[in-house]
């Protein structure tokens, strides 16, 4: 909402500058986002009177103008054509800087000296959309007469500052000058002066000329009509045009401008019909018929929804209520009799209509937000008065006011105790009364309890807290003392899941992995992109109804595609290696179709010179150590379509599947446009959480020495390491403390089809020093088992 300071000063005395006003208003709840200083566009611009126009000898499209700027006459060469002798125009003098940055210099145009420039609106910084139609191409021709040479901005009240207010949706009453001025007055603790509305009514009665009927009382809460006769439609005087432009509205003609002016002043949208174009002399407000179409004044035929409230002459539609008038009853330059409409339409219905028609107007957006029902009469009188002043027309006696369900304010109780309890203050009832009264809230002070009644324009004041907020904001939030909540001791902290998350993340970070965050929504095709077949549960993906695009249209069922995209992006940006992880949610449908299931997953992805299957395996093992998940079983998984069939494994802990990892299948990597090997893992976070141990128990350190025995065995090369370790495993219960693989060899020294494996075995007895003999006994047994069970021979 644009609030020109000078306009506001019509209703309230503002004795501070615009910047202080901004700060004060912001702190009382009307946030000012920006201040526009208009004067800067008019430095060195004065009003000139065109004295003489002669053709330019050397140029067909130029004229030479003699212009009176008070102290002297200037000669200016111009290409403009929309002006004549005796016109008053803005003249930028030598040295002036115009809005676009153009500096005016004395110059010569085709041999004729030009001592300045006559300006258009646009050259003076008026936005194109605000320039009156007849001056779009050409100079700004003033309507009034002025003393030549006076500064342009001062003469036209353009030496103003415009405050841009951010009005929150609960305060539609601030979307007009009086509403803003009311807030200013309350903030500055001064008085608000309403305009004086006075009419000279003629003897002829409005009610004898027209009838008004509301057949759709849900859609139309109030309809007031007034008739003006002998109006002359013409451009508005300069002051009115300027006011409208300052408030962001384009001047059209005096009648439309007057309705817009009063709309801006009071917030009441108004409409003027050419009464001659309503031969029935009837206004009937009713719902549109089935399959009705209507041509609005922007010359567009619009199909109407049957719920649309229409203004009709009984048969024919005249206007879409609260949205836009019709072309057929529009005021034009020949209009002499006007029917003015000041009505109140239902917010929801206007919103629906506006949405259905995809047509938003100044009027519709105001009705949507809510217009004060009580202001309609004042507004129609005010606009009648204004048009009478502008065109000296006749105003017929009386207004027809159809108001089926008049406004009844509801009074509630406001407890002083509650105010102070909620704010942490010590207001007296008098202090509260004073603040509320300044906002035109009616207060009956009964000491501990105030009976409060909102003014008609404050539909947002419903509950006790609404009034408490008024007290707080006018008093000033910054004036309320800051305190800490009274001590009910609460224990803060993160939940176990977050603790586990943090442990895993720390472990992965320490191993050089980067945490990434990717969108929760993906392309539904992404599941297939990692090779998952169409019948997989992962393809049962939850779709958004209104996605931004296909790429972000479905809630992911696996994090792997997102990780592949991260690898792809890094690869394509030329990063030689990338190791990353993400802990994020996957989403799946539930049988009851209600709340989807959200499950946390952990995904790891990597590529690079030094990355391979064992690197990602090691990362997972190390990470899980931070949760004491150490007994892991890795089982070859040759069927997972995302992975290389020979380089993929499922991870089990205590028989529970933790996840799958491996080298990404080359066709999948290719799908992402990568030519390198990539490694992926996706683990079930909730399973990890289940298995993880947060409180670690101490194991006493051994007191007795250990004995180390290395073994080297040769066995068939298809036998997995896990087979060998399965043989070691039972001995861990006894004196075998640990075993570690330290060499795998295949090559010339070994028969084809065989491999050589070397392990270090550490023996220790926790309670005494081991004897060689004891170790030999067990060691022999192990070797024997290796030989018998997997055909290993000692090398």
């Amino acid at each position, binding site marked *: 909402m644009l609030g020109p300071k000078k306009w506001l000063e019509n209703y309230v005395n503002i004795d501070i500058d615009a910047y202080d006003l901004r700060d004060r208003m912001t702190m009382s709840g009307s946030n000012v986002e920006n201040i526009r200083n208009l004067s800067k566009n008019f430095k060195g611009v004065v009003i000139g009177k065109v004295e003489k126009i002669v053709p330019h000898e050397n140029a067909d499209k130029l004229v030479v103008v003699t212009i009176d700027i008070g102290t002297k006459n200037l000669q200016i060469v111009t290409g403009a054509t929309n002006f004549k002798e005796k016109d008053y125009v803005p003249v930028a003098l030598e040295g002036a800087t115009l809005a676009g940055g153009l500096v005016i210099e004395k110059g010569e145009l085709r041999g004729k000296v030009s001592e300045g420039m006559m300006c258009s609106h646009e050259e003076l910084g008026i936005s194109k959309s605000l320039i009156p139609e007849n001056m779009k191409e050409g100079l700004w021709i003033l309507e009034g007469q002025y003393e030549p040479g006076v500064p342009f901005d001062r003469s036209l009240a353009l030496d103003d500052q415009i405050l841009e207010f951010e009005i929150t949706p609960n305060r539609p009453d601030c979307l007009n000058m009086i509403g803003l001025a009311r807030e200013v007055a309350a903030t500055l603790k001064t008085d608000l002066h309403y305009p004086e509305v006075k009419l000279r009514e003629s003897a002829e009665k409005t009610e004898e000329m027209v009838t008004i009927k509301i057949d759709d009382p849900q859609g139309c809460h109030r309809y007031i009509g007034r008739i003006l006769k002998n109006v002359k439609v013409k451009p508005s005087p300069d002051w009115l045009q300027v006011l409208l432009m300052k408030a962001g509205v384009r001047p059209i003609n005096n009648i439309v401008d007057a309705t817009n002016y009063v709309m801006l002043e009071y917030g009441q949208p108004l409409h003027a019909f050419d009464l001659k174009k309503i031969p029935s002399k009837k206004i009937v407000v009713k719902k549109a018929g089935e399959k009705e179409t209507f041509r609005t004044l922007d010359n567009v035929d619009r199909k109407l929804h049957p719920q649309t409230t229409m203004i009709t002459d009984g048969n024919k539609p005249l206007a879409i209520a609260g949205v836009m008038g019709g072309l057929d009853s529009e005021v034009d330059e020949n209009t002499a009799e006007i029917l003015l409409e000041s009505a109140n339409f239902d917010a929801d219905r206007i919103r629906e209509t506006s949405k259905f028609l995809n047509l938003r107007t100044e009027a519709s957006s105001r009705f949507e937000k809510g217009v004060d029902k009580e202001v309609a009469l004042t507004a129609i009188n005010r606009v009648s008065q204004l048009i009478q002043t502008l065109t000296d027309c006749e105003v017929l006696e009386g207004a027809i006011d159809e108001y089926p369900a008049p406004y009844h304010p509801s009074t509630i109780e406001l407890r002083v105790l509650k105010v102070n309890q909620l704010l942490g203050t010590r207001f007296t009832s008098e202090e509260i009364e004073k603040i509320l009264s300044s906002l035109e809230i009616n207060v009956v002070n009964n000491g501990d309890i105030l009976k409060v009644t909102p003014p008609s324009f404050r539909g947002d004041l419903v509950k006790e807290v609404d009034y408490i907020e008024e007290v707080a904001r006018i008093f000033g939030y910054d004036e309320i003392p800051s305190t800490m909540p009274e001590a009910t001791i609460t224990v803060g902290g993160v939940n176990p899941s977050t603790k586990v998350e943090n442990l895993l993340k720390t472990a992965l970070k320490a191993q050089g992995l980067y945490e990434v965050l990717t969108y929760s*929504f993906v392309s539904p095709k992404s599941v297939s992109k990692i090779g998952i077949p169409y019948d997989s549960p992962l393809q049962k993906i939850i779709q*958004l109804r209104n996605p931004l695009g296909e790429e972000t249209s479905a809630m992911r069922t696996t994090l792997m595609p997102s990780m592949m995209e991260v690898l792809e992006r890094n690869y394509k940006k030329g990063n030689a290696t990338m190791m990353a992880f993400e802990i994020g949610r996957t989403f799946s449908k539930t049988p009851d179709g209600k709340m989807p299931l959200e499950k946390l997953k952990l995904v790891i992805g990597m590529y690079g010179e030094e990355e391979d299957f064992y690197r990602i395996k090691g990362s997972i093992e190390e990470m899980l150590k931070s949760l004491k998940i150490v007994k892991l079983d890795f089982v070859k998984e040759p069927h997972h379509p995302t992975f290389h069939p020979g380089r993929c494994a499922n991870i089990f802990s205590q028989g529970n599947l933790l996840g799958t990892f491996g080298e990404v299948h080359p066709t999948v990597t290719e799908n992402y446009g990568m030519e390198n090997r990539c490694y992926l893992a996706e683990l079930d976070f909730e399973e990890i959480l289940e298995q993880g141990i947060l409180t670690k128990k101490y194991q006493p350190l051994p007191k007795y020495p250990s004995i180390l025995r290395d073994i080297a065995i040769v066995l068939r090369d298809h036998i997995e390491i896990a087979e060998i370790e399965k043989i070691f495993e039972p001995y861990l219960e006894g004196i075998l403390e640990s075993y570690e693989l330290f060499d795998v060899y295949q090559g010339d020294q070994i028969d084809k089809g065989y491999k050589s494996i070397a392990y270090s075995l550490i023996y220790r007895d926790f309670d005494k020093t081991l004897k060689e003999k004891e170790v030999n006994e067990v060691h022999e047994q192990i070797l024997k088992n290796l030989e018998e069970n997997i055909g290993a021979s000692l090398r």
Partner: protein
Amino acid sequence: MREKLENIQEQGIEEIQSTTNLKELEALRVKYLGKKGEITQILRGMGKLPAEERPIIGELANKVRERITKELVQSKEALDAKALEKKLSEEAIDVTMPGSKMPLGSIHPLRQSVENLEEIFISMGFKVVEGPEIETVENNFDALNAPKNHPSRDLSDTFYITEDLVLRTQTSPVQIRVMKETKPPIRVISPGRCFRNDTPDATHSPMFHQLEGLVIDKNITLGDLKGTLEVFAKSFFGAHTQTKFRPHHFPFTEPSAEMDITCFKCGGKGCSMCKGSGWIELLGAGMVHPNVLEYCGIDSEKYSGFAFGMGIDRITMAKHDIDDIRLFFENDQRFLQQFR
């Protein structure tokens, strides 16, 4: 005999002192002190001496032996020291060569912010809770007192899954979940992902992060809201940070406020980041609307509370001078690396 011993001593000392390595020194030890060494020989020949000379020569021989032993030890020490010095000097390396690394990864900058925020609020007795990313329309809008026709419910603002399910547009629905499940006193924060139908650009992302806070107890006041958030602002942005509370409007709080803090780039002088105002808008807050409390089955006559919410992405961008929100979700290693 005496002369002989004196010669041995003289010659021995000279030879020992002129040795340059341990091997030579060992040879000299054998030569003089060994079983067949010169001093040993003399001691063996003592029997041939007259009885009165024996003690004298014996004493002298022992002295010579001690002297030579001492000389040998000294010389060995010197040679050892020299050898060590030589070894160390040979082992000198170029200390300016790059270190061999166990490269460190990083935690995502947004998650680092979350951790920092959590830490502060935990110290003030807040519990961290989470809610689902797919929310009911009821929790995301209705229960939060959002008018039925509120524009934020539009398809152009909110992602819908069904008529009743949306991607949460704010972390505020977690408030509802907590209030429905827990009895006061309540003191929770809830960080998480939120979604709005915004086309990505430098300052917009269809997915972003918020942190929600909620305090419900007896006698909680607007003053408490101010006090708590002031403490938070000072701990997160530095002790010199000042705060400003402006009235605002949210459907689920009344009174509602926005909190500004002094710009952490210019300290309040005015710069490009704060658009010259010296202030940066940080969060929205307010006293929980009685409609919301009642909806969740909390007696609004008995209890009051405050809630606040802030955009983590925005705070993180401001803190690290990041000028494009999309960087967070592109996950380029060269970006992530900077937050190790």
